[in-house]
């Protein structure tokens, strides 16, 4: 193929885009390969080449030759260390196709970056060093590609120049690879002998490998038939935004992620079970009769039904799953390890789930071998299989069936970092089997009988801060004012309901989860529930906050400096923690996350507990939870 042909532009409707990922480590010549693609398809301009030539002298590793890797490794840190630390997206075009390449790092510590690049790719080019054969990292990359739903793989056997372009080397390694990859679910595996440095079999067939009859890598990428992954699938339309420019128009804006829809088709909203028909498919360029996978449109319906962002529009005959518990593969992407039971935020399609948690870790996957390993948590770059529960039901498909509706991300509610990404395997039946018993008597009725507004008054702070002392006084004062209260305290719950729990991070999370559920039930019975717990993690306090209605969770931060708590040491615990007889003690060798915006902030230094309790009562009165004067039973 003549490289000049690459420059001709044709406006054919058949020209599409292939998105692929390159896998391999730095020294496999991955960046060099991409640099070579860009260079030979004239996607590199003269001024960039001149800069490259200058840089090659300065940082290059290729002697007098141009070091193409420098084109691709853009950030300063990478150029200094000669590594790729982030996903870089590159583009080049031929008359047949336009290409978008995700170039990702190869080391195990960058698994998350590789997964990121693979998540939107249809094909993977896996580089193997002809001198080294199939390595652990080759297996890791292949495994991640398979997990992320890539179905087409090209094995590019690089550095053929260093093994004298021998056919037997190529055949042996390709056989090894095919053996290994046979159970990874790839639809196609192609193999091409190349030299990224000298350009063999990349843009055109090389005379050095006259035993190889093609196609060369570019020909292969141009011609591979990537069956549209989404066309034949059930219709899915996650609603992004409700478009209401005036009272006469109510459209649902979004992108058809799979299947197709036509005007007049019957639709259903799986979460609510409501049906309607498609009235119009609106676009700026005129209304359409039908819309297909990939079209960003606005749909109007024949009926006024309640639909919002996060709903999926589907067809009644092919509905997605709706469940609040599912099993999923999870890739952990954060420095802070995953904490089972902790409340995280989730995004599934356009659905924002305020709170979801990992309820059970089934196993961790050794990405180098695919083996299942017992694990209770996941650390950065680890992949596991787990059960997840969400506070509200979500609509989804299995990732294997639909990448766009079966994927989700996990977000830390405190820092807002994206901490994980997952692929749903299947819904857990239990979600459908626990039907809520419709209760004819609710919180409102039970509270009305007691003439009070139920709430949870949550004291948090270090051990010895004075939480229990103040909480007790508040309880007594409320009782004296004829309020129906209940006091839950860390120590007395750990003697009963929570006696199976220790003080590790995940046990602390479970401790607070149970306390929160108990407090919620008591609030439902109409009580003012006073809770006194160290509760060191913000995420768990927020989880309890989410269990009750707005305004019913009063967080009281008992703010005593750690030095003062150690000095008081009412239970002698700090002394034990310092001597090492107690582990995981908050403030000593376990963290405390102070509330950023508590409803009530008590600084206790030089204050009398009595006065502090009155402060709490005043705040409760201001919030309308209690009437400040004594009241009598009616």
């Amino acid at each position: 193929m003549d490289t000049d042909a690459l420059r001709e532009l044709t406006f054919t409707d058949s020209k599409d885009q292939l998105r692929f990922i390159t896998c391999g480590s730095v020294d496999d010549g991955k960046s060099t390969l991409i640099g070579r693609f860009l260079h030979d398809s004239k996607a590199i301009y003269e001024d960039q080449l001149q800069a490259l030539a200058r840089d090659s002298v300065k940082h290059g590793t290729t002697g007098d030759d141009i070091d193409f890797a420098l084109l691709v490794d853009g950030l300063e840190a990478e150029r200094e260390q000669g590594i790729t630390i982030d996903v870089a997206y590159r583009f080049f075009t031929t008359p047949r196709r336009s290409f978008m390449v995700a170039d990702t790092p190869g080391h195990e510590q960058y698994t998350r970056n590789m997964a990121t690049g693979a998540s939107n790719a249809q094909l993977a080019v896996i580089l193997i060093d002809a001198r080294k054969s199939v390595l652990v990292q080759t297996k890791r990359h292949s495994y991640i590609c398979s997990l992320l739903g890539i179905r087409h793989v090209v094995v590019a056997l690089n550095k053929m120049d260093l093994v004298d372009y021998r056919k037997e080397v190529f055949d042996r390694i390709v056989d090894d690879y095919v053996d290994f990859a046979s159970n990874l679910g790839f639809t196609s595996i192609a193999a091409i002998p190349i030299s990224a440095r000298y350009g063999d079999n990349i843009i055109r067939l090389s005379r050095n490998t006259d035993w190889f009859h093609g196609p060369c890598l570019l020909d292969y990428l141009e011609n591979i038939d990537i069956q549209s992954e989404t066309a034949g699938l059930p219709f899915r339309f996650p609603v992004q935004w409700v478009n209401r420019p005036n009272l006469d128009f109510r459209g649902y804006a979004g992108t058809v992620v799979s299947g197709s829809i036509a005007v007049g088709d019957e639709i259903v909203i799986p979460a609510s079970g409501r049906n309607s028909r498609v009235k119009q498919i609106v676009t700026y360029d005129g209304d359409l009769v039908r819309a297909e996978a990939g079209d960003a449109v606005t749909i109007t319906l024949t009926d006024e039904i309640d639909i919002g962002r996060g709903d999926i529009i589907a067809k009644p005959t092919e509905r997605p799953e709706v469940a609040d518990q599912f099993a999923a593969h999870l890739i952990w992407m954060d420095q802070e390890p995953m904490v089972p039971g902790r409340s995280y935020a989730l995004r599934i399609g356009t659905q924002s789930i305020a709170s979801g948690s990992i309820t059970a870790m089934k196993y961790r996957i050794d990405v180098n071998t695919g083996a299942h390993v017992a694990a209770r948590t996941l650390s950065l770059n680890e992949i596991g299989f787990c059960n997840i529960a969400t506070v509200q039901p979500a609509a989804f498909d299995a990732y294997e069936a639909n990448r766009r509706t079966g994927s989700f991300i996990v977000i830390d509610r405190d820092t807002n970092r994206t901490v994980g990404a997952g692929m749903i395997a299947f819904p857990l039946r239990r979600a459908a089997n626990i039907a809520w018993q419709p209760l004819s008597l609710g919180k409102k009725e039970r509270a009305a009988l007691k003439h009070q507004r139920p709430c949870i008054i949550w004291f948090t702070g270090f051990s010895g801060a004075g939480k229990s002392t103040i909480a007790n006084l508040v309880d007594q004062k409320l009782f004296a004012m004829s309020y129906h209260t209940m006091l839950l305290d860390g120590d007395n719950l750990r003697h009963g309901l929570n006696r199976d729990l220790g003080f590790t991070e995940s046990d602390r999370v479970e401790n607070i989860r149970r306390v929160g559920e108990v407090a919620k039930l008591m609030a439902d019975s109409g009580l003012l529930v006073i809770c006194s717990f160290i509760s060191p993690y913000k995420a768990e306090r927020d989880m309890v906050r989410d269990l009750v209605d707005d305004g019913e969770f009063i967080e009281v931060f008992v703010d005593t400096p750690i030095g003062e708590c150690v000095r008081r040491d009412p239970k002698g615990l700090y002394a034990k923690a310092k001597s090492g007889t107690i582990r995981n003690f908050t403030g000593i060798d376990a963290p405390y996350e102070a509330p950023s915006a508590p409803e009530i902030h008590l600084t206790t230094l030089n204050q009398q507990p009595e006065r502090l309790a009155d402060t709490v009562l005043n705040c409760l009165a201001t919030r309308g939870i209690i009437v400040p004067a004594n009241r009598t039973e009616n």
Partner: protein
Amino acid sequence: MNAQNITEPQTRTLPRHLRRLEAESIEIMREVVAEFSKPVMLYSIGKDSSVMLHLAQKAFYPAKVPFPLLHVDTTWKFREMISFRDGTAQRLGINLIVHVNQDGIERGINPIESGSTLHTQVMKTDALKQALDLYGFDAAFGGARRDEEKSRAKERIFSFRSQGHVWDPRNQRPELWNLFNTRSRNGETMRVFAISNWTELDVWEYIMLENIPVVPLYFAKQRWVVHRNGTLIMVDDERLPLAPDETPELKMMRFRTLGCYPLSGAIESDAATIKDIVAEMQVATLSERQGRLIDTDEVASMEKKKREGYF
């Protein structure tokens, strides 16, 4: 364009790869409007801004574009850019906010005496931060593309900026599938690059096929220029000081990229129509940003500018 006019999608003249890019950009824009309380579109008057604006009209139709445009004016833009800007806002009935760093004006900062680095820092980067803080925008669309420059290739679509608009390449959120993490706290903002995956060629093809108006400076015309350090600088007004040996000459020339006129190099060209431009691009040997003096004023300079809050 007629809403009553029902068309089969096959009659759309866009090639498939452009249809896909268009749909993706529309999806990104809708995501921002659904998730942020006060978005804005940074409008630089260039071809990429013109495409973004066109996409925004498509994304929210039949509603009007639900956010204002913000132009950070350094007061050194080409005169033709300013008249195009005002004409466009009027034509589309869009709320246009123009912000100038008055403090920079008072300090006498300009691209000629202050040098390109300081001028860009004060009149563009600082001015942008000022405007975002002043109006309290929590998300800003930008027209940067990943194919433009090395460090851009690694930029996220939703680029997170911590307090003070700081971009830390090591503190960016992973972006998988099309699931964007749009959460932010007070004072944190998001820059959103809705045409990240478009190339320069895609942009021009799209402008051609969709008949999108662009500033006339992109088309070849006889213009007054001087040769300076290997670039052609247009004499756009009397503020450009001329060296004793410099005489402006009339040349057929055009611009591939637009900015402050003393910092934007022109190219000699006869490409007077979009078709000509696309044809010229196919034989171009220099990159789009080569006329931008601010990219090369120090090593790794784009990355540095970005860390400081430049777009």
